[in-house]
């Protein structure tokens, strides 16, 4: 378990510890005081749920733990718990996420504010147990809020915030906190622990089933049949779906407000939707997601030293896609290189690249953009890789954009 590595800073009196991303997520969950967690192990998520189980066993977390027989039941048990009023949490990845897809798709439809970490892992097959964004990217149309973290500290802080975002009455949607398998799950770093009482105040009282409940004191049919072409069916279905879409759009505001309040209470400020790094006078930019951003920022710094006017745009909130925030971030540049750790099979590019194409349309002007794919199945994305991205993106300023994606680890 974690070790305390610094005496508490005078200002906050809070502990500073050294821990891995998986443990940081578990500690954040303990701070959020869920009623119920359900667990099923899968690499590279396993140590996360082991930490959760240990926290409960040691009495440091008062939650009911469901040791389910698979991810499908993990999510199903939590749905039941939420409908009975429980604050709920789990974590999974890769094949586990694929296995739970049936209840996964249903969770936002029932407007259940679950929080689930995806310790991102590449999709099989080819067989692999290492990190990549293919799992989370593949389910991005299922209606969950998906937020990606860059650092272990951000994992901890965002996991706590996720409960507030999910349970906000204007949102009422489940949240995936995505932390990169291997790089963040097992990467140890310095983490400041928030104060429990302050977190309690930040999260407030839970009320997760005010809108839909399975409670003999408030008997109702949950999710009766709707749709079809007769009677109230079509309009009723539309009302549910449109409400779900509205909740997603409301989440953009609520995520921003939660990050702002977090910054004020805890002194750590993270860009809620899109982070602009050295973008003020940038001529061109890279776009990143998750833990690769650290190496990318270092590379941008080096390129700046060498006189290149490059900046970086990092997406934190991937679903709902932050269209307006991205429009603003990209407004001043003339070329863009988008780096993905997953593929979009249909468009032969990275999924974040494809999503960004839609934003470019709304920019109302032509912005040459290239797709870079790297970091698949645990492959490293180093400064050398990002220098290549920078050079190739800079070349877009005076040359044609490539039709094909650039596969960064193809010759590693």
């Amino acid at each position, binding site marked *: 378990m974690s070790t305390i590595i610094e005496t508490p800073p005078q200002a906050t009196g809070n502990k500073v510890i050294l821990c891995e991303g998986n443990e940081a997520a578990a500690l954040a969950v303990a701070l959020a005081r869920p009623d119920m967690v359900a667990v099923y192990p899968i690499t590279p998520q396993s140590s996360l749920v082991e930490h959760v189980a240990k926290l409960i066993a040691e009495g440091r977390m008062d939650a009911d733990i469901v040791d389910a*027989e698979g991810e499908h039941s993990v999510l*199903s048990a939590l749905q039941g718990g939420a409908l009975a*009023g429980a604050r709920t949490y789990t974590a999974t990845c890769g094949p586990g996420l694929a296995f739970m897809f049936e209840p996964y798709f249903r969770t936002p439809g029932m407007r259940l504010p679950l929080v689930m970490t995806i310790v991102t892992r590449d999709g099989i097959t080819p067989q692999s147990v290492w990190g990549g964004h293919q799992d989370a990217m593949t389910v991005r149309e299922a209606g969950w809020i998906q937020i990606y973290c860059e650092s272990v500290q951000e994992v901890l802080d965002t996991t706590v915030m996720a409960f507030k975002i999910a349970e906000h009455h204007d949102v009422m949607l489940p949240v995936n906190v995505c932390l990169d398998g291997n790089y963040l799950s097992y990467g140890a770093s310095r983490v400041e622990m928030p104060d429990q009482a302050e977190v309690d105040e930040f999260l407030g009282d839970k009320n997760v089933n005010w809108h839909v409940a*399975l*409670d003999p004191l408030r008997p109702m049919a949950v999710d*009766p049949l709707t749709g079809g072409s007769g009677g109230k069916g079509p309009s009723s279905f539309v009302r549910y779906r449109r409400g779900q879409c509205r909740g997603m759009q409301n989440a953009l505001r609520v995520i921003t407000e939660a990050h702002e309040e977090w910054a004020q209470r805890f002194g750590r400020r993270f860009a809620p939707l899109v982070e602009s790094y050295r973008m003020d006078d940038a001529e061109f930019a890279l776009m990143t997601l998750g833990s690769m951003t650290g190496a990318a920022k270092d590379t941008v710094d080096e390129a700046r030293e060498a006189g290149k006017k490059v900046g970086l745009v990092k997406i934190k909130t991937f679903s709902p896609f932050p269209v307006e925030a991205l429009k603003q971030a990209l407004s001043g540049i003339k070329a863009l290189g988008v780096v993905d750790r997953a593929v979009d099979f249909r468009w032969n590019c990275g999924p974040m690249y494809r999503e960004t194409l839609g934003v470019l349309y709304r920019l109302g002007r032509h912005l040459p953009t290239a797709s870079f794919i790297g970091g698949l199945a645990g492959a490293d994305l180093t400064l050398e890789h990002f220098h290549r991205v920078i050079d190739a993106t800079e070349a877009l300023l005076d040359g044609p954009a490539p039709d094909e994606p650039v596969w960064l680890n193809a010759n590693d």
Partner: protein
Amino acid sequence: MGQAYSTIAFDPSACDGCGECMKACARVKFDSADVSRSLIQIVKSGDGADMRPGTPGEFELALCRQCGDPKCVTVCPAAALTKNGSTGVIDWDPAKCVDCLLCTLGCSYAGISLDAEVGRVSKCDTCDGNPACVPACPHGALRYVTTSRIYNEVGDWEDLFAPGLAGCQGCNTELLMRHALRRVGPDTVLATPPGCVPGMGSVGFNGTTGTKVPVFHPLLTNTASMLAGIKRQYKRVGRDITAMAIAGDGGASDVGFQSLSGAAERGEQILFLVIDNEGYMNTGMQRSSCTPFGAWTSTTPVGEHGQGKTQDAKNLPLIMVNHRCEYVATASTAFMEDLYDKLDKAIAASKRGFAYLHVYSPCTTGWRFPGDRNIEVARKAVETNFVLLWEYTQNRGLRFTRPVNDPAPVTEYLKTMARFKHLSEAQIDHIQRKVEENLRFVKRMAEMADAE
């Protein structure tokens, strides 16, 4: 509504005149070994002179029937005999009796007679609802029938489904689910996974509901795990609710089996009732793993190359026994008394752990028989041992609740419906063999439990 009462029933086809019931009565009532004092008398048909044990079918019962229109009461000049409104027993008051013996002439059943030992009349009082003669019978010829409880109690319980559920004509499932939910009561969260039960409208359409308790469609795959989450949260906050599923055999035995097995293994406190109509009947009568060998279904059709299902049914309740559930039982819609007894036990068990109740419910539409024959078909299934009625608890093991010692050949059951009408002799032989094999297997489990 009037009151119904429990009664002692006699099956002459099972009685060989051994007299154990009389011995028990004489012992319990009079501390006597003299069977002539017994209030129950088994007499040989005909002249009644020869009382040696003999062949079943030769014996008759002389016992107070606790009549609804008792002649003994009518003829009594002293008001010493009265019909007890709450127990149904004809009470005899020795303080009022003038020993005129008119009652013994009034009764057609020899149910009240002179006890020569004391010089006064005596009659059966059902031992206050626990008649000593019944358990004493080694042949199951005597039963204490408490079905009246269903009539008396259920009538007062609220029907928690809305009227007008859209079941097929003659469907026993509607009967079953209405009875079951009435018994479980309003402090229930009900899961009805996709199938006939929600198909009838129990969860409702477009914002309406067919059920008066909280009800939901789980996925076909996750009924047990969703219920587990619900039950756990109420337990956490100190509220006692019953988490109940009314599921079909397909969702339980096929695609939902993993979550069912997981929840049972974890001992989740759930009442899981499976209505086994041996296929996916709501979606058009497709085969499930509970469909029996040889049966026509829409995915095991009959034609030049197809002769119905080619595999035997999965025995889901036995699989649940091997999860060491708190309670497992099979039941039939033709035997409501047995079903109610098991429901009571299952409800109680679901407060301690996983309770599983598997109810065989014939499907008029999918099995293809007329809508007015449902109970008859269900009864035939039991009488041929095609369906075995038993219960299991961790402490007691498995025991038969309605053993059928002289089963009819399975053809008696198969011929009641059209889904089996194409069967060849070889297929029928296979089914008969499997019925016997299954009986032997379950019997061994029951014998093992008895031995322990």
